[in-house]
């Protein structure tokens, strides 16, 4: 009763206000009506489909006008109910209804319904929706009625919800991943998309480590075979994401953090292994093309693959996404604005926060990506100029510190802060008349990295220690640093990458052949202006004393100029579709000193692809369409700046250590050698790709099968050999009761020679990939609403050294390290072959607007073998550097016997893994209007069949637990 009075009061108030408003609005509407009638009739057919503010206003006005009119005349009620193929209500369909006297608009509501009051008569009705094919009907209004109209989705790709990658049918073998597939996959970063490639398997995200890309291979634990991932180029809206001058290296890359003694700096080092995929968010991506095969000559400085990322452009609602799983949380907000029909601006911000372990708050990764993208179209007569301008900002922050409550080394931290600001301006002039030139395109991108690694290390020397801090070769006096101190280091990288590409496409016919020519010029420039690795030499961040600061500024810029021309010839002869693409790319590194072999070398990359579309063969009710595509391509990846200009290596030998009990008498003397490990003979890595692909389609069933052979014999490798270093070891034991520091001039000494390793970049890693990729895509069977997809790949990948390896036994005898180095034919190589499969059953339930997919994926079999490693070396050398053959008699020499490596009976035995399976479940559902919820559980069920090796039956189980997460997306 207490509340009844105010409630009643409120109701009365509400009614009176409403009444007043109603009367006011009636007058207002009347006013609008008359002013509106004065406006010229709008030709709505030509109206730009996107809803600008003006458009909305007009829509509102015309709606009001209609309402008013309806009140004044007797009329029929016509209700339209718009649905799609699956009988799902379609909101936001604009309906235009017109005849000679009226022209009305309405939008369907959430139930897909829109109502009109119409006089009896004949009308034309048009239905329009951005994602559906429009419809036009004639309507005779006689009585009140409800009309159901079904609209079909715009094109084949949208005809049904595709939640897997699709296989491109162009000349270049590629996987296409669209927005829907990404939404269903619920990725945290680009790395998660790789599951969708043939042979790809779902992996639990690992966001606190760099994620390198693997295409058509299994990968190895060795870091000697990274050229494959380094040779995958990422291009986002024309901007190349790879950088050859990014050389950020922690001063102390052996820093360990926490009780697990994780070498954080080392594991986060990402030099020479390509783009770190975790840094690329996926929310803004409209589609991705992963070119596994041979790209056209327009793209270069890559060996293994090309990933083209296309981001959203054009007007969109506000879109929000919140994702959470066991390791990360991510948030996204984006919107596309249409300023006017020729100018769109898209903007977005994306944030991700990940931990290595949900319980570990001290090792984490943050990613912020913000972008503003503008697309402006200028009409120039009938031709168009499209100007796309993108401004991107990206921060990637890795933090590691120790839990102050439970950990040791409370002072230590490691911060890896990588920021990139990038500005792209892409101008494309499109000739729409039958000009010879189809377009001219200028792509420019400048990207500035602001990258810092900061380390704070409480350095605890092993005991009393001496160091040399000289930066010049020769004899020098060292220092006894403090045993414990705080060391601060900073590595400052300021890489700037400028990429420009000018290209044009031409089209003309000769006889029955159509030529499509692409030609252009590509220039890449990269320079690092960072101050590099910095620390106080007397307080080095490591107990190993051979560190010296290094500046990146002094490293010359990397410049790569390329010219390319290619022609795609198309002809149709008697129902045979023939396409032949031939292209050539010529590139050269510029600005190198003449002593570099690269400075004189011009790289020529021919690429040839032939596609033959066979005539359709009718079998039963449908036609079988077959395409055969064959390709050959040569591709080069140039070495990075850090490979061409490696840091000098300092080698400090103690000649006299005199750590007297009296601190005033202490003295240490060093001989320092500086090794310049530059390999001036380093060349670009070359990959030769050959492939043949068959595409079949029959009654909406699609198949493809690709055989490929890719051989890269001269991938980059850290090649190690050994050099003798001589120094003196002074003997101060005869000094009795000294009164001053000893001087080496008067002391007896012994000459010592030590063979020390020297590691330089060389073209010595072979990666030979062969395989068969296959896929089958069924249509969505209407009875089950279910679609089946089977993709997979058999890969045979050999990772081997292509130059002999030098190894020195790890052993000391009689007071000296073994003074011999063996030369061996084989290093540990990895010969792998196996078949991965991924079978996806996805069901779309239109009544619930829900997608459920289950993927059954795993390894059908896998064989792993090491390169045949022989125990004994073929040759050896001692401190004199003379190479001699290794004889059987050397096996009995007390020193040379250790050159025979330990090779066991199983080291060269192949291992055969049997079948395994992981079942992943993913669900996406619209839960309320524009809110979609998704859920995934990876490894819901796993099975690993036992395998037998060397007579042992090995039972396996997956180490990782099921991994799950969920997300919400909003459109508002």
């Amino acid at each position, binding site marked *: 009763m207490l509340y009844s009075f105010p409630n009643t009061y409120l109701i009365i108030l509400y009614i009176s206000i409403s009444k007043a408003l109603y009367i006011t609005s009636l007058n207002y509407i009347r006013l609008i009506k008359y002013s509106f009638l004065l406006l010229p009739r709008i030709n709505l057919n030509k109206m730009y489909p996107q809803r600008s503010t003006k458009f909305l206003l007009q829509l509102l006005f015309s709606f009001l006008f209609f309402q008013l009119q309806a009140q004044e005349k007797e009329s029929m009620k016509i209700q339209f109910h718009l649905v799609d193929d699956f009988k799902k209500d379609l909101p936001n369909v604009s309906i235009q209804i017109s005849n000679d006297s009226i022209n009305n608009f309405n939008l369907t509501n959430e139930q897909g319904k829109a109502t009109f009051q119409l006089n009896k008569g004949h009308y034309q009705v048009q239905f329009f929706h951005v994602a559906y094919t429009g419809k036009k009907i004639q309507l005779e209004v006689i009585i009140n009625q409800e009309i159901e109209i079904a609209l079909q989705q715009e094109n084949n790709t949208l005809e049904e919800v595709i939640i897997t990658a699709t296989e491109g049918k162009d000349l270049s073998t590629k996987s296409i991943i669209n927005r829907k597939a990404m939404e269903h996959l619920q990725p945290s970063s680009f790395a998660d998309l790789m599951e969708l490639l043939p042979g790809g398997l779902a992996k639990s995200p690992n966001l606190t480590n760099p994620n390198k890309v693997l295409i058509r291979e299994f990968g190895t634990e060795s870091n000697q075979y990274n050229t494959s991932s380094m040779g995958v180029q990422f291009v986002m809206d024309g901007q190349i994401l790879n950088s050859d001058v990014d050389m950020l290296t922690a001063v102390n890359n052996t820093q360990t953090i926490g009780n697990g003694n994780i070498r954080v700096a080392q594991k986060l080092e990402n030099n020479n292994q390509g783009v770190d995929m975790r840094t690329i968010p996926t929310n803004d991506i409209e589609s991705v093309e992963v070119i596994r095969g041979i790209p056209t000559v327009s793209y270069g400085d890559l060996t293994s693959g090309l990933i083209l990322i296309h981001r959203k452009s054009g007007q969109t609602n506000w879109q929000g996404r919140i994702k959470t799983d066991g390791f990360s949380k991510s948030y996204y907000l984006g919107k596309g604005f249409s300023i006017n029909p020729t100018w769109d601006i898209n903007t977005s911000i994306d944030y991700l926060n990940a931990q290595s372990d949900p319980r570990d708050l001290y090792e984490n990764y943050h990613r912020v990506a913000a972008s503003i993208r503008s697309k402006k179209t200028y009409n120039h007569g009938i031709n168009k100029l499209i100007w796309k301008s993108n401004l991107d900002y990206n921060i990637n922050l890795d933090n590691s510190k120790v839990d102050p409550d439970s*950990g*040791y*080394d*409370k*002072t230590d931290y490691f911060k890896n802060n990588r920021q990139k600001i990038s500005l792209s301006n892409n101008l494309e002039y499109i000739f729409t008349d039958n000009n010879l030139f189809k377009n001219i395109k200028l792509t420019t991108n400048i990207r500035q990295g602001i990258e810092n690694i900061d380390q704070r290390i*409480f350095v*605890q*020397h*092993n*005991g*009393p*220690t*001496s*160091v040399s801090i000289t930066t010049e070769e020769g004899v020098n006096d060292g220092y*006894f640093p403090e*045993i*414990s101190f705080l060391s601060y280091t900073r590595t400052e990288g300021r890489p700037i990458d400028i990429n420009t590409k000018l290209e044009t496409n031409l089209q003309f016919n000769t006889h029955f052949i159509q030529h499509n020519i692409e030609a252009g010029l590509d220039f890449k420039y990269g320079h690092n202006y960072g101050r590099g690795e910095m620390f106080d030499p007397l307080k080095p961040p490591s*107990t*190993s*004393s*051979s560190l010296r600061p290094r500046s990146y500024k002094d490293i010359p810029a990397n410049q790569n100029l390329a010219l390319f021309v290619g022609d795609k010839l198309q002809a149709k002869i008697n129902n045979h579709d023939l396409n032949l693409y031939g292209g050539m790319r010529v590139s050269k590194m510029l600005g190198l000193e003449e002593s570099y072999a690269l400075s004189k070398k011009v790289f020529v990359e021919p690429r040839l692809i032939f596609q033959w579309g066979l005539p359709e063969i009718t079998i039963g009710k449908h036609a079988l369409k077959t395409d055969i595509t064959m390709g050959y391509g040569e591709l080069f990846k140039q070495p990075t700046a850090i490979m061409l200009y490696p840091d000098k290596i300092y*080698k*400090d*030998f*103690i000649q006299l*250590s*005199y*750590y*007297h*009990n009296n601190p005033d008498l202490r003295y*240490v003397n060093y001989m320092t050698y500086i090794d310049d490990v530059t390999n001036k003979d380093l060349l670009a890595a070359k990959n030769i790709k050959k492939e043949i692909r068959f595409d079949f389609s029959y009654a909406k069933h699609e198949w493809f099968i690709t055989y490929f052979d890719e051989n890269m014999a001269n991938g980059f490798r850290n090649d190690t050999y050994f050099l003798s270093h001589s120094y003196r070891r002074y003997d*101060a*034991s005869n000094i009795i009761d000294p009164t001053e520091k000893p001087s080496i001039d008067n002391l007896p000494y012994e000459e010592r020679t*030590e063979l*020390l390793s020297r590691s330089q970049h060389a073209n010595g890693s072979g990666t030979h990939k062969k395989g068969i990729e296959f896929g089958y895509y069924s249509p969505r069977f209407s009875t089950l609403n279910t679609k089946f997809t089977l993709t997979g790949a058999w890969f045979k990948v050999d990772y081997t050294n292509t130059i002999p390896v030098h190894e*020195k036994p*790890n*052993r*000391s*005898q*009689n*007071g*000296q*390290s073994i003074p011999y180095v063996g030369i061996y034919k084989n290093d540990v190589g990895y010969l792998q072959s196996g078949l991965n499969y991924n079978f996806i059953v996805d069901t779309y339930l239109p009544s619930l607007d829900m997608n459920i997919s289950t993927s059954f994926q795993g390894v059908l079999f896998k064989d792993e073998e090491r390169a045949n490693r022989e125990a004994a070396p073929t040759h050896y050398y001692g401190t004199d550097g003379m190479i001699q053959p290794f004889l059987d008699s050397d096996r009995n020499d*007390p*020193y040379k*016997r*250790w050159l*025979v490596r*330990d090779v*066991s*009976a*199983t*080291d060269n035995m192949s291992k055969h893994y049997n079948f395994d399976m992981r079942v992943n479940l993913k669900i996406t559902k619209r839960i309320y209007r524009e809110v979609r919820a998704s859920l995934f559980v990876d490894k819901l069920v796993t099975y690993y069949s036992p395998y*037998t*090796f*060397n*007579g*042992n039956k*090995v039972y396996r189980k997956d180490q990782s637990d099921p991994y799950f997460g969920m997300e919400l997306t909003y459109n508002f």
Partner: protein
Amino acid sequence: MNKKLLVFSFALFSLSTTFTSCSSDDSIVNNQNQESILTVNLHGKEIKSIHEMDIRFLETNTGKETQLKMQSLSQEFKLPKGSYKIIADGKVILGGGEEMQAGANSSIDLINDTHNISIELFVKSFNEDFIIEEVFFTGVTTLEGKAYVSSKYFKLTNNTDKVLSTGGLLICQSEFITTNNNHVTPEIKESDFTVKAILMIPHENAKNIEPGDFIVIADMAANHKQPNIPAYDLSGADYEYPNLDNPKLGDVDNPSVPNAKVIYSTLNYNMFLMHNRGAESYALARFPQEITIQSWLAGYTYTYEYTNATGNVTTKTAKTIPNAWIIDGINSSPIEGWEHNALGTSIDNGWTGVGVLSSDPNRFGKSARRKVIGTMENGRNLYKDTNNSTEDFHRDAEPSLKNGINHS
């Protein structure tokens, strides 16, 4: 233990005195006071009872010697009055049940009718050479919580009754770790010890060590104690093995302390690094006369292999020291994680070590120390050595050099 023994000895003592007083009553009747009744009470650190003991009484005036046997620690003897030297020699049972040689010397003038004498027994050593008294392999943690790797040491003691030379002593580290048993084939530990590294005390830097005295072989003979590092002052060590050869280590060399030589290591640059959890075995050895470093390097190799759970075979070649050359050895392991001993049972039938957990955060600043079994005649400690380090060593002991090196 000591308290128990004390109570026990006291009980025995009181028992025997009661008994003596009874017999005294009897003797009044029989003796003509020419003889004296001497109650001999033997005692000694850790000695529980007598197994067999000869006792000789030498009358210094007449030169007459009386040889008798003792059955218990306290016994009564009827002897003519006079001046006697008493020599006891025999076997005793220690608190831990071990049987040891023991002896004692004393003298007494028998002038009254009854006398009591308490004689301290000294356990006689049975070692022929040095023993490992202590291994400090864990290092310490600094006040900041960081591991301080240096100030590790071996402490070797002359547990014999003769002067020994340190020249040619070999300190051997096991190839195999005790917390992982790969079940290698062939298994040779009952005849040979597979080594990872050997430190040798060069003959030219030999020292003579008195019975009961010890030597310290430190990684660096320096004062490791710092305001933030609770490590020890090892500047008075007898030998050190700093690594000057590895350009990255930057160890320092004390000119007043001779260096031990790494004659073998499976690491480059002559590195000899102790396992900081102590999951390995150490042996003390000497080459026989005819063996030199070079001749040992020429032979004594051992190729072994093992298969892991997934069927992978590992083959390795290593160096060995025959067990016959070993003069002492200990197996060491944290309690959790012990899988096997790297030394044969004839060298060490047990295992000692530091720490409970396999990577025990509390292990730092603790060592494995041999138990003291008694006192030598020169007053120095005599250490227990039953070739079973479980019995012979204290786990998690306080390092003996915590307050520096003190030979007194």
